[in-house]
Structure formats: structure tokens, C-alpha cells
């Protein structure tokens, strides 16, 4: 556990030694607030609720979270530190988990910095804080799955930009998948599968303030599976 935290600390240092960590937090805050207050015409709707605020986050995260995950392995490979890191006394799961925790720490910081938004809204009327908590939990789980998927993609390449583009595409598709059954008429089974796969579909119930174990299960699977595959990828790379 100690060593996992060492890696996490190193990655967090890396995020904030370069502009990428600051930029992520800044863009996240500005985009969330601006889109919510101005685009979603919060003031015109005249209701003290944050569903609009949170409904923006899945797509926003699909576009900007890959900026955090793209470097995790691709940069190590590019700089030649990949091999070096693997000759340090770490197990693969420690490395993968440490990097995942670093990404989540930055996301966590960004989310904490949005707390003024619900606090401010609560000044205008009675805000259901229980719902706000599940909404935050939903975003955190969504980010967790996205961070794991992003890290997996980064482990396949030595080019950060490729990792970024592929991650954005995959995450955006996973998000927009929920729109497909609405736009096109699909057989019930197929629609069910498409919905199950979609990140957004599972996120929606959180943003309604509903905590469903199936959604929880989905996000946990979508976090653990990519992390596991990342660790295996590294191990297999060394057998070759």
C-alpha cells in the first residue's frame, strides 16, 4: 500500500509540475460553471436544483479526463522511464493502482472545488442535499471508470496524443450510446445491451438521486477490468 501511494504521489507531482493538472482543474471548473449558469439558463428556470449541472459532467469528463490519463504510460515509454520503473521493486498492480489513484486525486480536487456551486444554489431555495451527494458519487464513479479506461489505452502506446484521441472517442461513444435506442428503433434485447454498456445510462439514475446496486456494480466492473488488463499488459510485455 505504501508503495502504491509513493507512485500516486509521484504522478500527482507530475500532474502539477506540468501545466496539465492545473489546466484540467481550471477547464473543468470554468466549463461546468459556465455551461450550467449560462447555457442551461439556470436563472430563467427558477428552480433550486443541480440536475443540469451534473448532467453536463459525463460528456465534459469524456473530453478532458483523457488529458490526465494519456500521459500515465505513454510518457513513461517515450522517456524511457517505463523500463526503469519496472526495474524498481514494484509489483504491476501497485504501479497501475498508484497511477489510477493519482488521476482520481486530481478529479477529486476538481470536484471539491465545485462545492461552492451547490452551496450557492442552496441560498436560492431548499436544495435536496441527499440528491447532491448521490450526484457527486455518480460523477466520481463515472470518472473512476473513465480513468481506468484511459489508463488502459495509455498503456498501449508511446504517443500521448494517440492515447488522448482514442480515449476521447471511446469515452464519448460510451456516453452517447444511451442516445442510440432513443434515435433508432432497436430490438428490445439490443437496446438493453446498448443501454447497459452506456456510461451515461448508469449515471442518470445517480443524478436522479437514486442509488442502484446494478449501476454501482457496473462502474466497479468498468474500473477494475481495465486496471486488471493494464497490469496484465505490462506483465505480458516483459515476457515477449
Amino acid at each position: 500500500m505504501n508503495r502504491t501511494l509513493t507512485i500516486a504521489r509521484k504522478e500527482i507531482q507530475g500532474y502539477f509540475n506540468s501545466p496539465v493538472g492545473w489546466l484540467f482543474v481550471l477547464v473543468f471548473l470554468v466549463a461546468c460553471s459556465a455551461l450550467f449558469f449560462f447555457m442551461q439558463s439556470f436563472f430563467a428556470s427558477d428552480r433550486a436544483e443541480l440536475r443540469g449541472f451534473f448532467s453536463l459532467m459525463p460528456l465534459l469528463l469524456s473530453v478532458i479526463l483523457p488529458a490526465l490519463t494519456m500521459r500515465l504510460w505513454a510518457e513513461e515509454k517515450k522517456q524511457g522511464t517505463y523500463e526503469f520503473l519496472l526495474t524498481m521493486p514494484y509489483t504491476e498492480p501497485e504501479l497501475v493502482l498508484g497511477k489510477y489513484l493519482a488521476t482520481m486525486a486530481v478529479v477529486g480536487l476538481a470536484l471539491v472545488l465545485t462545492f461552492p456551486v451547490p452551496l450557492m444554489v442552496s441560498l436560492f431555495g431548499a436544495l435536496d442535499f441527499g440528491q447532491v451527494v448521490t450526484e457527486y458519487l455518480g460523477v466520481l464513479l463515472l470518472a473512476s471508470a473513465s480513468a481506468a479506461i484511459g489508463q488502459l489505452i495509455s498503456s498501449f502506446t508511446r504517443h500521448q496524443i494517440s492515447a488522448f484521441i482514442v480515449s476521447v472517442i471511446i469515452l464519448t461513444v460510451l456516453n452517447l450510446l444511451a442516445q442510440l435506442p432513443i434515435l433508432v428503433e432497436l430490438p428490445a434485447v439490443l437496446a438493453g445491451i446498448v443501454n447497459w454498456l452506456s456510461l451515461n445510462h448508469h449515471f442518470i439514475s445517480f443524478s436522479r438521486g437514486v442509488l442502484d446496486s446494478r449501476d454501482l456494480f457496473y462502474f466497479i466492473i468498468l474500473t477494475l477490468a481495465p486496471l486488471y488488463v493494464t497490469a496484465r499488459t505490462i506483465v505480458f510485455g516483459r515476457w515477449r
Partner: protein
Amino acid sequence: MIEVSNLVKRYGGFEAVRGVSFVAGTGKVVGLLGPNGAGKTTIMKVLTGYHRPSSGQALLNDIDVAVDPVAVKSSVGYLAEGVPLYTDMTVREYLDFIAESRQLPAAERAEAIAKACQSCGLKGMDDVRIEHLSKGFRQRVGLAQAILHDPAILILDEPTTGLDPNQILEIRSLIRSLGVNKTVILSTHILQEVEALCSEVIIINEGRIVAQGTTAEIARSLQGEDRLDCLVKLPANAAKDAFSAAKVGAALRASGVIGSCEVEALSGGKLRLKLLTGAGQADDAAAAVFGWAKDQDCTLLDLRREALSLEQIFVQLTGEEAKR
């Protein structure tokens, strides 16, 4: 202590290391010498636990790399080829990260870092970002990183590449002092480095060991260990073809201790002889040449004995393999 037996490493269909065995004891600096692409780096990558061996075994202080790579990694210090570093960190941040990764107790970290910086000449560089360092200083950071946890085994892949002559001398003396109570393996294709640093040499070509031992042993084990270079003045009344190349050669070879004989007639009635002797027979060969010259009434003007330098051995061993 490093014990490697029958190590094989394949990348896909390509066999980079083909059955290498050697032992490197404590207090030794062992040089892995070979042309580029010979398999030196691959051997080191296996020893550091980065690559798993395809077959064979590598024991580092009696721990099998393939069985417990994490334990091996803890007891090894490794300077990788090209010195990859986290360039966005400062020297201090980087060495802190290494100390933590090596799980040095927090109380000992500062002291270990200070000591490593001292030995590698990094005093006062704490807050410099690695990306702003010159190649020589990066090399030192890499070396400081490798010795930070005082490992029993040091593996250095081309430790002096890219350094200026002064830095090379400094780093070499550091490695020499480290070699006193550690096992050090270093790879290089610089022959002087091996002669200057290593107590033992392993010459590798195309994934195989072609020679192994101290530099003197390797030289001795080779056929035609010594070369004799002679200059002879022929008697004034010598018959025209009494000293033809064929006759001289035959006469000298008849002694049984001279392998090959190259004869070159010079102006002024002189002959230059280039002789290769069998292993350990240089004394007898020199005596045979002297005896022959006396019998033939020749004057021996010059008789020089040349041991094969490491460079010649290297060319002979790796060049021959390449021709095959």
C-alpha cells in the same frame, strides 16, 4: 554474487541471448564487452528483472529473478542505457522518489541522498530540474539513483557514454571504489574502459559468450598468444635463394613452437619476420629464432614480443564470428 546459467532470451522468433553462463563474485567488477546488438543489454534487462528469461536461470544473491523479481529488484542498483530520468522533477524530488520506492526508512533517506549526491558530485544541485541538467550531470543523477540504497549488486549499462574525459575518470574511480564490496557488472563497447576498470571480462557476440576471464587469461587462451617481430641482417656472402620465404619459413616451423611465419625481404640484405607462437611458447620460439640466426650466420637486429591487446582479441573474436 551473480550466477547465470544457460540463459536464453527470445524476442518473438529472434534469439537475443543464446545460452549464456557466468559467475560474478562479490568484490569484482565484471565487464560485459561486445559489439552493438550482441545481447549485453538484454542480459542486463534479465538480471534486473525487467525481462523474464525464456529459459535458463539467473540467481542474484541466491534469489532467482524469475521466481521473486521484486526481491531481486530491491537488492540491485541499475543504471539503464541512455539514463532515463523523470525530467520534470528536480534532483531532490527524483532522489526522494527513488528513496521512497526503495522503501528506505524515512529517517535514513536524507542521509542516503546526501551520501549518494556526495559520491556522484551532485552537491548543490538539489533544486535544479533534471531537464536543465547537462548529459554528464544526468549520468551522475542516474548513478546516484543506482547506489542510493547501497545495493549489493550494481548493474550499469554503458555508464560513461556521453561524458567528457574528466567526468569519465571521475565516474570510473567511483565505480572502482564501489566494486570493492559489491558485485558490479557493467556493459561497454569501449575497450579501454574494460582494461581500466574490470577485474574480469566477458566478451559477447551474437548472444553467446566467446571469451571469458581476466584480460590476461583471455589473451593466453587464444591461439597465437604472442607475436614475435624480428629484424634479421643476412650474411654478406649469402647465396641468392638460401633465404627465400619458403626456406626460412620451413626452417623456423621445424622448431615446432612457431605457428605461422611471414617473411618480408627488405632492402640492404635484411629480412623482417612476423611470427605467431603457440600458447605459452613465446620463450621457446624466441630461442628458436636466435638459434636459427646463429646457425645461418645472420645478425639479429631486433626481436620484439607483443602480447595481443584486448582490442586485437576483440576484433579477432567478434570479427571471426561475424564472418561465419
